[in-house]
């Protein structure tokens, strides 16, 4: 795999899916908009490894979210950021109409 679908700086959205089971995309970022902080590397998909299954490699990204995107008015300080690692299959391009 090369650098994957998204480049550093790309605006992205975390898919808002709620399946049960071993998921490594925390719920608080699902459906939220952020930007790719860095492209890390491909890793075996933990959502398959967790069940003892052969796992395909998935590109892993670090995605940066603003505190206000995640928490709205409850954010402590609008300048703060939260960054999390997210696998490619949880990421989709941002809707171009989304105002960042």
């Amino acid at each position, binding site marked *: 795999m090369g650098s994957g679908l998204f480049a550093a700086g790309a605006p992205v959205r975390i898919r808002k899916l709620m399946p049960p089971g071993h998921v490594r995309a*925390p*719920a*608080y970022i699902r459906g939220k908009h952020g930007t790719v902080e860095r492209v890390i590397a491909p890793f075996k998909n933990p959502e398959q490894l967790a069940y*003892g299954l052969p796992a395909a490699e998935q590109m892993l990204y670090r995605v940066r979210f603003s505190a206000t995107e*995640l928490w709205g008015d409850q954010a402590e300080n609008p300048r703060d950021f939260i960054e999390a690692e997210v696998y490619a299959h949880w990421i989709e391009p941002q809707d171009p109409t989304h105002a960042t």
Partner: protein
Amino acid sequence: MNIKKNGHRWHDMGGQDAGAVPQNQHDFSLWEKRVDALMIVASSKGYFTVDGLRRSLEDMGEYAFENMSYYERWIASINQNLIESGTYTLEELGAKMAQVQKRGETYGEANLG
């Protein structure tokens, strides 16, 4: 409840309300270190994955999180994964645990090592 109506699972804690961060600290006892070592050794040899450890910890649910210590949950999860990978059977485990229990009333007495 392990899964809320919207599918949000108990272990996925980010952003939830909670009290002050507890500052009390304990030193790990030998049996806890042995659990940690079993995890590292068995997973590094491919008997299960750290992802499998986490999956089982999650599936054990919130009650286990609140009522068992960290390494109690770990040995339960390690065992679950070793059973699933066929490393030993439940019958073998049950017989061995009964044998261990007969050795004495304390960990020191029951441990042969």
